[in-house]
């Protein structure tokens, strides 16, 4: 009987259950039912609005980069360009010297990020697992590294590099990264320390008993276990180095990285494209080129993010930063 009419049977069962419930329980269930049906609608509206706020500039960027400059003055063009063209992209790429700048950026970015991840991981491990005199004091220095803004120390650093004759060379970026003192190194050391502290000690004890030295234990036991954390920190390092223009600006006198070129996009564009006095480009039309430059400079990061999004979000959860 019940199998033939499962809906009815379920309803009857529910009724029987409800008869056993107290008033409070029933009102709780009713309230829950209402919130469960109303809340998703609200949630959708809020999330939709917020996503829109975040995506708007990026959509605007894409929309502008591929349109003809005359479309900027056309009130009927909101999102979809009327005159689709790659001109702005091509001209901006030429003005930015895209190939060379990109290669330079990658050289600084990937190199520094790699070095810094390795050195900060070693430092973080040292803080996480060894007891020695002055550890608290040294860790205090790490916290200080997180707190002190780079602006404070940049000028004396500049003088130092100038004395060494390294200004305008990639060594100004590489040397700090190689000694765990590059961009946001303090934060990275902190993350690694938290992560290694969270790993079970038994892993290493077993290795020690088998006669492994600490260095080999670190390389053979800890590093493989920490790979996802390494990847996360590496990705963040890549993003930070990619976006940095402040430090680059101090150590390089020419626009050698993408971030720096975008920061100075107006002079760059003016010098390359709008030198001709007869050319009249209104401020509105100018947007086409700046947005094209923006799009080109962040598209590698966006691509990386699209491919590795999981590691950005899940890695930090596993990194033990929170626990």
């Amino acid at each position, binding site marked *: 009987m019940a199998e033939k009419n499962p809906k009815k049977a379920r309803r009857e069962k529910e009724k029987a259950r409800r008869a056993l419930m107290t008033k409070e329980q029933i009102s709780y269930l009713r309230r829950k039912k209402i919130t469960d049906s109303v809340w998703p609608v609200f949630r959708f509206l809020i999330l939709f609005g917020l996503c829109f706020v975040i995506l708007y500039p990026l959509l605007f960027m894409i929309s502008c980069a591929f349109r003809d400059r005359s479309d900027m003055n056309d009130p009927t063009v909101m999102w979809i360009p009327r005159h689709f063209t790659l001109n702005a992209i091509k001209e901006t790429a030429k003005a930015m010297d895209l190939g060379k700048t990109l290669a330079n950026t990658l050289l600084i970015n990937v190199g520094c990020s790699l070095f810094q991840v390795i050195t900060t991981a070693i430092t973080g491990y040292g803080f996480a697992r060894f007891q020695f005199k002055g550890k608290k004091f040294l860790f205090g220095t790490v916290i200080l590294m997180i707190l002190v803004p780079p602006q404070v120390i940049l000028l004396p650093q500049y003088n130092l590099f100038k004395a060494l004759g390294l200004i305008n060379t990639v060594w100004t970026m590489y040397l700090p990264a190689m000694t765990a003192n590059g961009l946001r190194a303090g934060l990275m050391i902190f993350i690694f320390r938290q992560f290694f502290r969270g790993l079970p000690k038994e892993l290493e004890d077993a290795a020690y008993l088998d006669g492994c030295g600490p260095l080999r234990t670190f390389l053979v036991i800890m590093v493989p276990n920490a790979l996802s954390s390494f990847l996360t920190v590496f990705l963040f390092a890549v993003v930070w180095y990619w976006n940095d223009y402040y430090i680059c600006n101090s150590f390089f006198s020419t626009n050698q990285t993408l971030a720096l070129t975008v920061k100075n996009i107006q002079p760059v564009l003016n010098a390359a494209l709008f030198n001709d006095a007869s050319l009249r480009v209104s401020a509105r039309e100018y947007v086409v080129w700046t947005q094209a430059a923006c799009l080109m*400079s962040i598209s590698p990061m966006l691509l990386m993010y699209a491919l590795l999004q999981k590691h950005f979000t899940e890695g930090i959860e596993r990194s033990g930063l929170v626990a």
Partner: protein
Amino acid sequence: MKKEKKKRGLSYEKQKRLYGYGFLSLWLIGTIVFFIIPAAGSLIYSFQDVTPGAAATWVGFKNYTEAFARDPYFRTYLADEISEMLKTTPVILIFSLFSAVLINQKFRGRGFVRAVFFLPVIVASGPVYSVITGDMNTSGAEGADQFSTLFETDMVTDLLEFTGIYGLSQTLTESIKHTIDSIFAIVWRSGIQILIFLAALQNIPPSAREAAQLEGATAWEYFWKITFPYVSPMILANLVFTVIDSFTDSGNKVMGRIIAMQSDWKYGLAASMVWSYFAIVIFIVGILFLIAGKLVYYEVD
């Protein structure tokens, strides 16, 4: 081989201690060369009259008095930035906690929404963000203009009038308007904070959730009695992160002034400005830490 034998003579504890220094050695060298010496150097600059080409002379607190008493912009900018920081930091914290709670719930398309919410992490620390917001005084401002029309103050005023809040109190409406106007900036500056809060939310043991559900806790009660205590240590972390982030923000007027002084060759003055700004902010963070520290719940290990 020889080294091995030598080490074996040391006690295990001592050996481990040495290894500890060994692991830190690279960082230690770098920190002394690239952090401590420059930081000390900058502190010394702030008490000196530094002109390129000439020897620096000791001038005591002259740079500091000049920064605060004579510089036409420094004091105003400082007051602006600090009040702005005090206003936006709590909003960012509340917003990011709220967002983290939202995207921690189960719904369709959650992966996409999360990806969008963390997108600012990729973009916001770079120069592209300043083009987007029009901070650069380039024509990029056009984009920002067009954007802000979406959140036109009139719309906000209408809404406030409709709900009857408008006219109740000048400061209330002003602050609501300010919040809505800066919604864009807040959403865009909350990426990392949301990430950290989300991680904290996911570390709440399922047993706590089950217990709350068995007891019939409402969402409101659940938030205040379970969620909030569990994420409270991360509120402190996010507080510090937000404040430090506002230091290096591209629109920070105080830093802009400092950089202007540097390019004017007034290194001593610039250094004194940086250090006094830093000291004030650290002082504020310290106070907030003391207040917030009492509200934080730490699970006993």
